[in-house]
């Protein structure tokens, strides 16, 4: 990567990598702890777990994979991918939701 070319820059990013590393370990412990909290709502439990996972994912993708300072072309590819992934997930889940199917208002035995 052109912006990492000189040794000084690399030295600086190494510090950042180590910081990210500690954050990831902390995130892992945090997830496990959060899952022990007696939270009633399933939605909240899932949201917390996924939120932490997303933060960790962002750290890995952003810093270890240098996405933070990547080129436009790569962003383009990934945005398209995320869009189609979202389409696949939401449309499938929506289509298979009971309310989206043909059904009678009066319950049939």
């Amino acid at each position, binding site marked *: 990567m052109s912006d990492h070319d000189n040794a000084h820059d690399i030295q600086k990013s190494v510090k950042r990598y180590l910081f990210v590393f500690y954050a990831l370990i902390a995130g892992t412990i945090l997830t496990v702890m959060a899952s022990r909290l007696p939270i009633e709502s399933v939605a909240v439990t899932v949201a917390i777990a996924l939120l932490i996972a997303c933060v960790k994912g962002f750290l890995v993708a952003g810093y270890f994979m240098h996405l933070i300072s990547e080129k436009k*072309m790569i962003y383009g590819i990934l945005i*398209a*991918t995320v869009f*189609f992934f979202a*389409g*696949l997930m939401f*449309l*499938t889940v*929506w*289509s*298979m939701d009971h*309310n*989206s*199917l*043909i*059904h009678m208002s009066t319950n049939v035995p």
Partner: protein
Amino acid sequence: MSTQATTHAHPHADAHASDHHELGFLQKYVFSTDHKIIGIQYGVTALLFLLFGLGLMAMMRWSIAYPNQPLPLVGSLLEKLLGSNAAGHGIMSSTLYNSFGAMHGTIMVFLGIVPLAFAAFGNFVVPLQIGAPDMAFPRINMASYQSYVIGGLIMLISFFIPGGAAQAGWTSYSPLATSFPGNGQTFWILGMVFLITSSLLGAVNFLATIIQLRAPGMTWMRLPFFVWAQFVTGFLLLLAFPPLEAAAIMQLMDKVAHTSFFLPTGLAVTGAHISGGGSPLLWQHLFWFLGHPEVYVLILPAMGIVCEILACNTRKPIWGYKSLVYSALVIGFLSFIVWAHHMYLTGMGTRISTFFQTTTMIISIPSVIILTCLFLSLWGGSIRFNTPMLFALAFLPMFGIGGLTGLPLGFNFSDLHLHDTYYVIAHFHYVVAPGTIFALFAGVYFWFPKATGRYMSEFWGRVHFTCSFIFMNLVFMPMFAQGMAGMLRRMYDGGINYSTANTPGTIGGLSEGIMHLNVVVSTAVWCLGLSQIPFIINFFWSIKHGKKIESDNPWHATTLDWQTPTPPPHGNFAKTPVVHRGPYEYSVPGHATDFTPQNEA
């Protein structure tokens, strides 16, 4: 570096490549990493698979026209090869028909058209058209071809295993797909995994090549439309195939590890104890998430080829180049969110089906625009009717008919009547057979001189075109009538059980006329098969004996693929070409010739 004036630098025009150092046969043809050789390997293999797919259909059509009667010529051979359960007394059983049907679909789509349209033409033409020395990753390119061959072999072997090949249609709907005792479906899935891998490797390679290896001056808006079509196709393959791969893995687990991904609770079909809890509809969603982008994979390269040939043979620029490009992009984008129009009758309520109907109608608009641009490009041209052009011209109304008949299928309420009838069969065959296959024939006739240094015979080309055109329409036009009357697909006996003759006193049977069309169509299919003989002979004969081309640019075309020596050597261009203008500068006022190559300074 305009080379169209130089005469043939290489006297042995029939040799495929003119490397500077001699390579052994294996290295040159089997383990080649040269994009042109790989393109030709792909092309010949895919043509053979197309022929095989046609052969399967020729046999199936016998069963449709004359159910439960021994097949002539091949009946006893089938019995010997596949056993008397499948073809006792040379009669095609329902099981065998279902296997052949599933494999016809699979082979045509995944082993015939995609490898020919995307991989073969893409490999041969794209690097030449963008002025690149090769693909970005030559060795991955080779791996892609090898993976394709392995996938194809697995599919072929599956015919001979106990129980025969997969029988659940090319769509392989669960629970049916996993309910058969034999291993046909397992082979199908394994074969698909290799084919998917091949396509993914190919897609990565094409996209990287187009993004990275464009010659200096070859900006995005100077790319020939064919390259754009391949670019969009590459994205479709890259992002739509993995969900099918995921689904295939899950179906494989259902089949061999007795999981229940696609099997609901309380199913009374498989012998083994299953836990249940899965959903058959999940398979359909994942399949069609690939399935719909896939159909555009089948058509976009064809549109690209037609566009190149039209521009060259009308001797004028394509009308609305930008609209073409944007339409292709929009098609690519939208094709990921229309898939459930194949599932209208799975019990969809109004909201969901409205969403998918709307996207389906929206996606038909860019197709209309593309076809309009191509039609309007003819206006003011000086049209040359050579064989490639005849096929390319025929593509337009044929795709038009196929596309138009997609509309009544796209509305759920009319699909209600037409779903799973021969109307659907006719719809998509019009797009893929007289549509895509004609475009591919056009491409073969068009680029053959670049690959071999010789023309294919014009006379036999015309014979091939005329017969193919007539019989294609005789095959698929009657199917609209059959479908409208309610004749269903995937019936080995052509629907004889539903004919009025066999259902006396019942309303809604198929009339004698409709049943008789089966014989008409089948006869036309056999004639269509015979019409390919001139092509096959012409193809192989012309490699050695065809008329030699007069220059490296025999059609007087503008794109870079024609500005190389013939056949292009390893590395393609002696010197990196520099591009100065758009792709279709024909009949530029004031220019000495009626074409101005992209790299002319």
